[in-house]
């Protein structure tokens, strides 16, 4: 573990007293505080409709808060959507190049970066395929590679694996952890799955039903690299149970 320096300077995302009320009067978030240190993998679990996705949209700048402060470097942000959002008219390679291309990177550099990212997510050999030829898991890998190309400091994950089957999801969880350890990015991850949250994270936050607030926090101490089988250990189940209990409170 790197020594924790000054807390302010080492923060990848800091949200202070954030509130958001939509134009129709719905209060989505209420006085929410959140801090993601660099090198941290923070996951938010919460009842559906509690404003988890809204939180990510705020962090990325797609939405503006009504109150509070959001301190984040938006030039170095990776956003992985729930849907792979690949452009169907582009091949895998051209999709992976997209963010670099829109950022104005020249062709040889972005081609190199894209090939490296494709290798990182194990999609080598599929560069010239179109999205319609890919499986759900491969599409998500491609989406991940697209965000990896610019090597962002902070990743925002909006339930990226929710639509995948259990096996593919666990497989991608392993790969994501591998990337997290090697690429040194901070993560804010959203999921419905407690098991996924515990397996991936250094910290799990529980969000209340709307208006969303953070109502509980659990540090996950399993050392990295984490073996897939830790999911079946008793201490793993124990912490899942605690989070599950908090979620029941969050629902009410």
């Amino acid at each position, binding site marked *: 573990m790197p020594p924790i320096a000054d807390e302010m300077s080492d923060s990848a995302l800091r949200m202070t007293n954030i509130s958001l009320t939509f134009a129709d009067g719905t209060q989505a978030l209420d006085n929410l505080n959140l801090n993601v240190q660099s090198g941290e993998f923070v996951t938010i679990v919460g009842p559906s409709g509690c404003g988890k996705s809204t939180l990510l949209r705020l962090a990325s700048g797609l939405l503006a808060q009504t109150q509070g402060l959001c301190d984040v470097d938006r030039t170095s942000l990776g956003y992985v959507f729930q849907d792979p959002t690949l*452009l*169907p008219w582009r091949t895998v390679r051209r999709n992976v190049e997209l963010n670099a291309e*829109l950022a104005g990177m020249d062709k040889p550099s972005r081609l190199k970066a894209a090939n490296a990212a494709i290798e990182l997510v194990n999609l080598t050999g599929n560069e010239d395929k179109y999205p319609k030829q890919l499986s759900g898991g491969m599409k998500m890998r491609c989406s991940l590679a697209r965000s990896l190309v610019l090597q962002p400091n902070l990743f925002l994950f909006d339930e990226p694996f929710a639509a995948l089957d259990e096996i593919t999801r666990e497989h991608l969880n392993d790969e994501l952890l591998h990337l997290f350890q090697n690429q040194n990015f901070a993560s804010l991850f959203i999921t419905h799955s407690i098991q996924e949250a515990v397996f991936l994270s250094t910290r799990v936050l529980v969000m209340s039903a709307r208006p969303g607030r953070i109502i509980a926090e659990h540090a996950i101490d399993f050392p990295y690299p984490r073996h897939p089988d830790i999911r079946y250990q008793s201490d793993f189940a124990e912490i899942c149970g605690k989070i599950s209990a908090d979620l029941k409170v969050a629902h009410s």
Partner: protein
Amino acid sequence: MSRIRRPSLRVNTLLPMATFACFIAVWYLYATFNYDNPVQRRNALPYPHEIITDGFMPVTDKVNGLRPILGYMWPTVKVTILGLSIAITLGIALAVLMNLSRSVERALFPYAVVLQTVPILAITPLLTQLFGEELGVRLVVTVLIAIFPVITNTLFGLQSTDQMHHDLFTLSHVSRRTRLWRLELPSALPSLMTGIRIASGSAVIGSVVADFFFVKGEKGIGYYIRTRQQKSIERPEMFAGTITASIFGVLMFLLVGWVTTRAIRDWHDKD
């Protein structure tokens, strides 16, 4: 194993051929039983084989048969292709403008609808006054008829761009132009292609109709059909001209369909 099978080539060709055979049979029966006098029948509804022998044949004569028909076809082909090209270019440009600005859309779209509903034939005197009686007015009629499907389908395509794709581009802080060229236009391509395909059929109708009403300048197949309508002895020629114009319409539709399908078949879901 998939239960849905593509119909075989045999079914694909045999079924339409059977329909065609029925159609021809009904034609013969109707022509035979509806007229007592054979001359009267030939001059009103000739048998299909008479259309070939008296309309299309001889094939190479300068005055009768297929050669003059093709000669009259050529100006119509030119007007159709030129008019269609203008309709596509102008239609896409208008749709892009409407997509860029809600106000432009509100200001223009009602008139795009009016274009489609106004009976063009009723305003031919006005059009003649504005655009003369030669190439200009023929192009105008063709464009007026062909542009609506291009505008509506392109606009629909541009506006149906996936919201999450928009978010993706917003996160990269792109310019309006980049969003249009890299995201909206490619997204709109499949429905744009549908618009062009519909327009290609309409353009043929437009140029043939224009031939009917504007007799100056290069005379097209519509003129040939109209003049053959006037003498009942030339009824087979009239049918031959009409059939040739229809075949051209079908060829345009198939050609444009082939080109547009090729343009998107690699990535588009529906194939």
